[in-house]
């Protein structure tokens, strides 16, 4: 089981003192937070990709490359790579490069963007959202797996004998998650390739994501990648903690009430009841998240959103301390309890290389055996 932090990188005014960080401060804070994630013993840091203020992370590989140099074990992921509007050739090259720089500690999460105009900004049509995600990813797959690619598609210039460079580290492509809030097409795509499926799990009630994940698991099995219980599932989550639950509520309420997306809408009480947001003591967070496997099945990755809505850096770092010291060690034990042996661990580069080598060894061994028996 992998735990980590994901961030959208919003520059938001702190509602308690009206202080707004500069872009520079926010970017530096994100880099500090990422290093803290490793320090407190979590495995993953994931960064969104956005091209509209107030979100700053438009260039994820730049930031993740820096974090790679500053950390030892942390897996660096995107929390969205826009498979719709980025050229798949550039994605193939950028992330293969990051794989080399980070010694394999890289994976990606494909998404389609958070705002309509991002399509026309990059010369695309929002009505092609799903077809773009499908076609671009089909090309990306081939660029990472075949040395020379001939390609003709609907959305980009054809390629003849094109080799993307550098080649993926150890000849193994980064692991890919597909994120979607409501499109069965994307769950189907993730299942088809045997890739991971990530449910953001933040803004909507769990019942919605339960249906989507269960669909993905069934289709994963249908496409022959293993049993439904062996599909690779990641979940988002959100928490704010204090030793005393009432202090957490009091401290977080102004941030909740003014947060982007849900601020000025439902009450914090309604929202915490209806979505996985948990505001309270560390024990409440443990209870809430330990129960997730009952709804989604045993899963591989749990990411938390901890640094949004104008929360100051100091508070975020304190929250990460609580998470790392008090919550995650207990959750690890809870998730390990009665976890069936066939449920895979969270994906790593080493595991993917080992899997590839095992498959190669098996395919070499088979014909030899056939010869002997003949």
């Amino acid at each position, binding site marked *: 089981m992998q735990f980590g932090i994901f961030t959208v990188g919003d520059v938001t005014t702190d509602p308690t003192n009206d202080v707004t960080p500069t872009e520079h401060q926010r970017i530096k804070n994100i880099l500090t937070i990422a290093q803290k994630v490793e320090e407190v013993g979590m495995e993953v840091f994931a960064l969104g990709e956005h091209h509209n203020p107030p979100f700053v992370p438009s260039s994820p590989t730049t930031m993740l490359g820096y974090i790679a140099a500053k950390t030892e074990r942390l897996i660096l992921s995107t929390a969205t790579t826009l498979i719709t509007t980025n050229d798949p050739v550039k994605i193939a090259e950028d992330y293969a490069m990051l794989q080399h720089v980070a010694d394999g500690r890289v994976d990606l999460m494909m998404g389609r963007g958070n705002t309509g105009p991002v399509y026309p900004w990059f010369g695309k049509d929002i009505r092609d959202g799903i077809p773009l995600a499908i076609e671009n990813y*089909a090309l990306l797959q081939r660029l990472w797996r075949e040395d020379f690619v001939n390609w003709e*598609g609907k959305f980009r210039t054809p390629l003849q004998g094109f080799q993307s460079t550098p080649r993926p580290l150890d000849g193994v492509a980064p692991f890919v998650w597909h994120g979607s809030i409501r499109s*069965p097409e994307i769950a189907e795509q993730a299942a*088809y390739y045997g890739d991971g499926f990530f449910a953001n799990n933040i*803004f909507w009630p769990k019942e*919605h994501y339960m*249906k989507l994940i269960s669909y993905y698991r069934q289709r994963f099995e249908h496409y022959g990648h293993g049993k439904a219980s062996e599909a690779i599932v990641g979940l988002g989550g959100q928490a704010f903690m204090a030793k005393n639950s009432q202090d957490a509520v009091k401290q977080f309420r102004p941030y909740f009430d003014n947060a982007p997306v849900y601020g000025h*809408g439902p009450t914090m009480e309604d929202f915490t009841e*209806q979505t996985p947001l948990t505001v309270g003591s560390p024990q409440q967070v443990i209870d809430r998240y330990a129960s997730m496997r009952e709804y989604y099945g045993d899963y591989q990755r749990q990411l938390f959103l901890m640094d949004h809505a104008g929360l100051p850096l100091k508070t975020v770092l304190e929250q990460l301390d609580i998470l790392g010291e008090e919550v995650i060690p207990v959750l690890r034990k809870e998730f390990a309890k009665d976890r069936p042996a066939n449920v895979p661990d969270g994906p790593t580069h080493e595991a993917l290389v080992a899997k590839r080598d095992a498959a190669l060894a098996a395919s070499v061994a088979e014909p030899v055996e056939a010869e002997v028996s003949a």
Partner: protein
Amino acid sequence: MTTRKIAVITSGLSQPSSTRLLADRLADATARQLEVLGVDAEVTILELRDTAQDVVNNLMTGFPSPKLEKAIEAVTGADALIAVTPVFTTSYSGLFKSFIDVLDPQSLTDMPVLIGATGGSERHSLALDYAMRPLFTYLHAVVVPTSVYAASSDWGSTGDGVATALPDRIERAARELAKLAVDSDRSSRVVDPFALPAGFSPVGGYGAQ
């Protein structure tokens, strides 16, 4: 006897409201007309004011509260719909439109709909035809030809030679809705939320080459 589910949405803001009064008359008349056709009516009346906060929250968060979800399911899973709004500033009320806005735009396709409106004077009766009717047409619903507008004065007058009396208009509209409701199988349909579009391929049109 077979049963048809009739959902009624009414967006009057006061309690009691004349919009609700009209909604009740339309619902009763529809049930009566269905009975004539040998069909039982199961009527669910939804006062939108009861879910007003939930509707606004849904607009902002993108998901309905459990209470609103129940209301939405009652509407989209009905065999026929009666929709009644007060006319505010020449159109349907904001609450009415906000409720419509949180529905999946595909969810009223083929829905037989009877539209009604209330107002202080007869002057706004055309709001039914320039605002309400196009709204449901856009959603691919089937709106019955007769819509019912009730001005305050309609509750205390007989026909005036131009329009027939309110009860006659209600009866005629209800008859039209009942005929469509009898043939509607919407409430017994099973909807697959994960149905992929026809021809969908996980590798796209060119990816497999």
